[in-house]
């Protein structure tokens, strides 16, 4: 098991507030790793640090041994580490298919001038994007809504669309931001199956940040738990469920709760 993504002592301070404090862990190639923690634990900040959407105060993130934590987001994406967003972040006034086609930017071989002039390469690219978009639509079962405007979609479909946009970039590592939030049980189960197939059929390494415990336990190979910006546990779902520090973080220690 080789580490594809290494998070090394990553720290983020906002003024006097330390949102993430020296968190380190490795993500192995082909695994599904979840980062969990109570509200305000610093999960979202950690997520943004790994995808390079905010600069780190200290520490670094390595992708296949190369430092990615100071690069612009589009460069990190270009290397193969791609994030998805929560449901509202889609191209609202495009159809589902247009969203996915436009998200193929990373695979474009033609230059912008080539696209403007309609060069042979540009035409080949456009065609390949269309084929690939249709394939992704099939993979995620979005066929029924392919020509629907994204702004008209319900939550569950929006998440799936977010994942489709991520897939269009052909990622090596896909970072999912709370993929199950706001979903009902059926939608969650459907999404869990999709994430598993992503790994099994496409070989994508998945790192996700999530609240939904049952889903996380079902989906993850390993889990990292953070609380107050620090890593408090790391291990398989079974190990995490039995870890007293995790239980304390989620339920509060009895003594602390009654102030003794």
């Amino acid at each position: 098991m080789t580490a594809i993504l290494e998070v090394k002592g990553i720290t983020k301070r906002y003024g006097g507030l330390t949102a993430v404090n020296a968190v380190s862990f490795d993500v192995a190639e082909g695994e599904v790793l979840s980062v969990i923690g109570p509200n305000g634990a610093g999960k979202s900040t950690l997520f943004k640090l790994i995808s390079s959407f905010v600069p780190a105060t200290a520490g670094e993130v390595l992708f296949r041994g190369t430092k990615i934590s100071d690069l612009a987001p589009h460069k990190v994406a270009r290397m193969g580490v791609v994030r998805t967003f929560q449901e509202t972040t889609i191209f609202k006034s495009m159809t589902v298919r247009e969203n996915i086609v436009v998200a193929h930017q990373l695979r474009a071989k033609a230059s912008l001038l080539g696209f403007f002039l309609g060069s042979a390469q540009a035409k080949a690219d456009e065609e390949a994007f269309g084929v690939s978009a249709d394939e992704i639509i099939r993979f995620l079962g979005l066929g029924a809504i392919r020509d629907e405007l994204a702004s008209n979609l319900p939550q569950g479909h929006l998440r799936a669309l977010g994942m489709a946009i991520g897939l269009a970039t052909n990622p090596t590592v896909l970072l999912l931001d709370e993929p199950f939030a706001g979903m009902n049980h059926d939608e969650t189960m459907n999404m869990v199956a999709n994430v598993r197939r992503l790994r099994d059929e496409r070989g994508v390494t998945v790192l996700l940040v999530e609240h939904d415990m049952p889903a996380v336990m079902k989906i993850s190979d390993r889990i990292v738990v953070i609380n107050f910006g620090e890593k408090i546990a790391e291990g398989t779902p079974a190990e995490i469920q039995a870890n007293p520090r995790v239980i304390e973080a989620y339920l509060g220690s009895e003594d602390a709760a009654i102030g003794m």
Partner: protein
Amino acid sequence: MNAQRLLGIAGFLLAVFVLVPWGIAASGRWDFYYTLTSVALLSIGAAGVWLTFYIGRINIGQGAYALMGGYVSAVLITKAGFSFWATLPLAGLFCAVISVLIGLPILRLRGVYFAMVTLVLTEVTRLTALALPVTNGAKGITSIPLPSELSVFGLTIIPDFATMQNPKLAFYLLAATLMVLGYAALWRIVNSRLGHLCRSLQQNEELASSIGVNTAYLRVLAYAISSFFGGISGAVFVAISQSIYPSSFVVTDSINFMLYCFLGGLGYVFGPMLGTLLLYFGWDLLSVAKQYQLLIYSSAMIALMLAVPNGILSLLDRKGGQK
């Protein structure tokens, strides 16, 4: 569908290049040439503004680039002895280069903040033109010669404007040709992947960068193209009036460029062209109303904004027509 589009293009070209000159000759309203030439040139500038709208930025600074383009052309003709035809692309390129330098820092701003900076830009350009020695301050540059002959390998393509019987017609044809070329380029941008990427920026810059779009580069590129259009438009205006002053393009002009886009329709490539035609021509026709001109004009504009907030061309969509 494709035949329909070709027919539309042919009809448009016929109207612009044949019917308008014929109509003017028949009616004897030679003053319409000046009006329609202005419409064509302003609509080029408006096309640029429209493109910045397309990447999600409100641009109220096109007057700055029109002024810059005008001065570049005027200075090169009068001080360096360039032909007008050489100065035309140079004016556009100069504006594009300046806009890259200005755009790199200011395009990070969004919404009203970007709009405010661009608004100031026109005023800054005017003051710069007042202060610089090369622009001759408030006295401006006057008596600029008309465009000279343009020939390639000894073959005359465009004769010297000074020897023409009807330079008004020639200027109209020049402006109309540039307008057609400008809008063809714009149409192509919007309908190619470049346009899809611009739309992705307009709708969500964060997501665009997460899928690998170099958002900073694309923003600057769109702004540079926009300013190129502004420069071209300004340079031809100067050639027609044969003079330029710091007040040739002011903040009002910048605002008008934006209004043309709004009224025509931000979602439609040909929106700014229609907007320019209606607003500029409408203003001209309303001069018969004398002191009520501004009142009627403003009321009509408010009414239009209320009735068709997405621009006049959105009326086509309501009837189930295509873009």
